[in-house]
């Protein structure tokens, strides 16, 4: 018997078609993954099942939960179902909880909303539920506030809120996308266990096929608001009838072939670097404390080398990146690029910076929306003593844009006219235009869809060959680092715990932390006959 049935569900928002004839079922106790790239309509499908659609949304077709058609129910009937029969978990645990209410209060609220019981009883049940999701009362009492918990712990609270009433269906919308790999593995285990124990249907929305490949019973692949393929996980992965499914899988496990590294002596040298932050004073007149975010880090990046830096959030990756760019002063140690210090006096050494550029993660936030592309990508020219003008400037713009696969005519557009992948190409053009020796990629492909990510990785390979570039590739995504780097550094709690040739580290990790990281990272099953 089907628990949830979507039957020919179409959705438009202000006459813009979002979903087209979506049809699938979820049985009780079944884990169903809905996957697809951004804009495929997977999140809207989840919100439609909750009937929590934005204003101006119009639906046709049917959504049946048990024997009730949700599209025919009144708002107050729906409020009786949400949280009670359908629970939902969201992507961003940092913002999904009310910051001014305790976790106990927020979990108990679900219970108090749907049953007549005393506050004390609801509190007791909230404590039980929190214990069940791995937050025991001795360490996480009900009186904790969300800001006192880590991202993974907050996601557990959100899950506790969703399952407090033992709903029949749990919808999880990218529940682990914002989490570190080791935390992700724990949360996925928890969701699977809860679904199995309670015989609950679980709809997992995710863009990452590797995440669901070994937990889902069935996979539904969506594109542009339509279901293109669905089936049992094993069968679907074996057969893959639809070309889009094949493309998605190929892109997820996309591997590039790096050109031979012609390492010719050190380019970036980091020796014994420490970076401290002041922590607030503990007494009125006491000395402020220190937090060492980067502790005694030393490594060398050779000219022509592609070096990776992996680690989980809070390990000091970003702090180290800022220090490398000369944006902050370090408390100990030296950082030199081709023998020159990156930080002189009390400011970045601009003479060094022209040889080192950076590409950031967010293709939407890292551009000034009021400037045209030409102005954005020529920004680094201020680092040059004699920046090109007139025809030479135009030629540099044309070349940079062509090199990253855009057209010279794109120079006159604004960034909002481009997709995420194209914007990341513009960011690369901006880094490339002054012909640096080294480019830092700070999570540069993490926000991109898999197919776009594959294209950008290919572009990076072409560029490093054509422009004789060295890369420092900073990422939490192990599969990307594995394919795009020659050598890798593993960072934990501000220290580099392991370094070595990328393949060696991945196949035979030495440090226990590296082993944990690699084991926790979700991998796609090997499928024959698939190459990107």
């Amino acid at each position, binding site marked *: 018997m089907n628990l949830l049935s979507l039957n020919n569900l179409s959705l438009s928002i202000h006459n813009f078609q979002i979903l087209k004839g979506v049809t699938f079922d979820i049985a009780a106790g079944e884990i169903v993954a809905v996957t697809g790239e951004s804009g495929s309509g997977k999140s809207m499908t989840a919100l439609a099942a909750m009937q929590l659609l934005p204003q101006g949304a119009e639906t046709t077709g049917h959504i049946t939960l048990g024997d009730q058609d949700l599209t025919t129910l009144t708002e107050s009937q729906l409020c009786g179902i949400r*949280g009670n029969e359908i629970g939902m978990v969201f992507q961003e645990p940092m913002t999904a909880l009310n910051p001014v209410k305790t976790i106990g209060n927020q979990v108990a609220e679900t219970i108090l909303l749907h049953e007549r019981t005393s506050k004390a009883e609801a509190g007791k049940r909230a404590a039980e539920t929190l214990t069940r999701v791995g937050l025991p009362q001795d360490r996480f009492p009900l009186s904790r*506030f969300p800001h006192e918990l880590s991202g993974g712990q907050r996601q557990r609270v959100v899950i506790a809120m969703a399952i407090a009433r033992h709903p029949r269906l749990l919808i999880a919308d990218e529940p682990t996308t914002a989490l570190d790999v080791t935390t992700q593995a724990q949360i996925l285990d928890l969701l699977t266990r809860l679904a199995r124990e309670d015989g609950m249907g679980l709809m997992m929305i995710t863009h990452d096929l590797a995440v669901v490949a070994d937990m889902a019973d069935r996979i539904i692949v969506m594109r542009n608001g339509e279901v293109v393929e669905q089936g049992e996980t094993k069968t679907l992965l074996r057969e893959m009838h639809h070309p889009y499914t094949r493309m998605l899988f190929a892109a997820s496990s996309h591997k590039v072939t790096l050109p031979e590294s012609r390492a010719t002596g050190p380019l970036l040298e980091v020796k014994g670097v420490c970076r401290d932050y002041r922590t607030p004073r503990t007494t009125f007149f006491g000395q402020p404390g220190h937090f060492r975010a980067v502790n005694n880090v030393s490594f060398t990046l050779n000219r022509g080398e592609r070096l990776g830096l992996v680690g989980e959030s809070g390990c000091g990756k970003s702090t180290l990146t800022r220090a490398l760019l000369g944006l902050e002063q370090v408390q100990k140690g030296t950082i030199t690029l081709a023998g020159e210090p990156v930080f002189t006096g009390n400011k970045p050494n601009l003479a060094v910076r022209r040889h080192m550029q950076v590409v950031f993660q967010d293709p939407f936030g890292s551009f000034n929306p009021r400037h045209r592309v030409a102005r954005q990508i020529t920004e680094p020219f201020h680092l040059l003593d004699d920046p090109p003008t007139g025809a030479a400037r135009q030629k540099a713009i044309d070349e940079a844009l062509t090199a990253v696969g855009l057209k010279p005519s794109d120079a006159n557009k604004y960034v909002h006219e481009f997709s995420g992948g194209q914007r990341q190409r513009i960011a690369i053009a901006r880094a490339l235009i002054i012909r640096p020796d080294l480019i830092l990629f700070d999570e540069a492909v993490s926000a991109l869809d898999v197919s776009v990510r594959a294209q950008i990785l290919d572009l990076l390979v072409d560029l490093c060959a054509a422009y004789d570039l060295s890369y420092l590739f900073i990422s939490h995504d192990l599969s990307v680092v594995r394919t795009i780097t020659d050598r890798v550094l593993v960072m934990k709690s501000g220290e580099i715990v392991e370094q070595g040739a990328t393949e060696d580290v991945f196949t035979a990790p030495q440090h226990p932390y590296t082993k944990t990281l690699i084991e926790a990272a979700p991998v796609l099953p090997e499928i024959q006959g698939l190459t990107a």
Partner: protein
Amino acid sequence: MLRYSLKRLLSLVISLAVASLVIFAVIEVAPGDPASFMLGMNAQPETLAALRSELGLDVSKPERYLAWIGGMLTGDFGTSYTYRTPVAEMVTQRLWVSLPLALYALTLSTLIAFPAGIYAAARRGRAGDIGVMGATQLGVAVPNFWFAMMLVLLFAIKLRWFSAGGFAGWQDGPWPALRSLTLPAVALALPQAAILARVMRSALLDVLGEDFIRTARAKGLTARQALWRHGLRNAMIPVLTIIGLQFSFLLAGGIIIEQVFYLPGLGRLIFQSISARDLIVVESVTMLLVFAVIFVNFAVDLAYAAVDPRLRART
């Protein structure tokens, strides 16, 4: 929470000390000698010297600063140069008008603004929202003295519910006094309410767009329950900031309204003292107002911490 409060308190004391120095210095450099102003152009040097010594103007500046601060701390604000009465007495009299008026206006403005802002936010983009926003636009644009004149025309002259001006005093109990403060309070409150309602609405809309509101809805709360239980308290920080600023403004900034309604308030006192070069009064009233502003900020800081647990944790 205690650490946070102590820290705010320390910052309050430091601010007051700095403010007193600045006020003293500014008044000192202001040209014009009060003694010669009081005695006129043709005063004898001996009379002038005598008066200067009587007013305490003949000692060194640090001594005068310390005497002034010491006096303030013990409730002795000095004697007015022009009226020859203790400044403390004059200020107390005026405070009995200005403080109730400010509180009255603030209460009214909050009572109008909260429901209006919440109503508009809950009906974003619909007729109710557009109506409220239009009204607040008008409230912000129209100056309060114009409201004051319209109120006098309607309620004092036409309907004869209130008197057109003057202050009845507190000697006959609170009602006559409050009655004479009602029209001025309404006139002061309307523009403030318009601003506060807009702040309330936009703060609430920001919060309603947050992820945790969607989480609350997914638990089964109605849109209205989500707004009241999860939205309102989170929207309070910007609203409290504006309330703090408005109270400080209302305490002394009601001068035009005091003029229109002929109320003996602090605003008028300070205006008259400046015209008469009665610097000791100017100095003391300014210091008092600074104290009020800093104290209100302190109270607002404590209110922030009461609303938001994250601030309590931060030291």
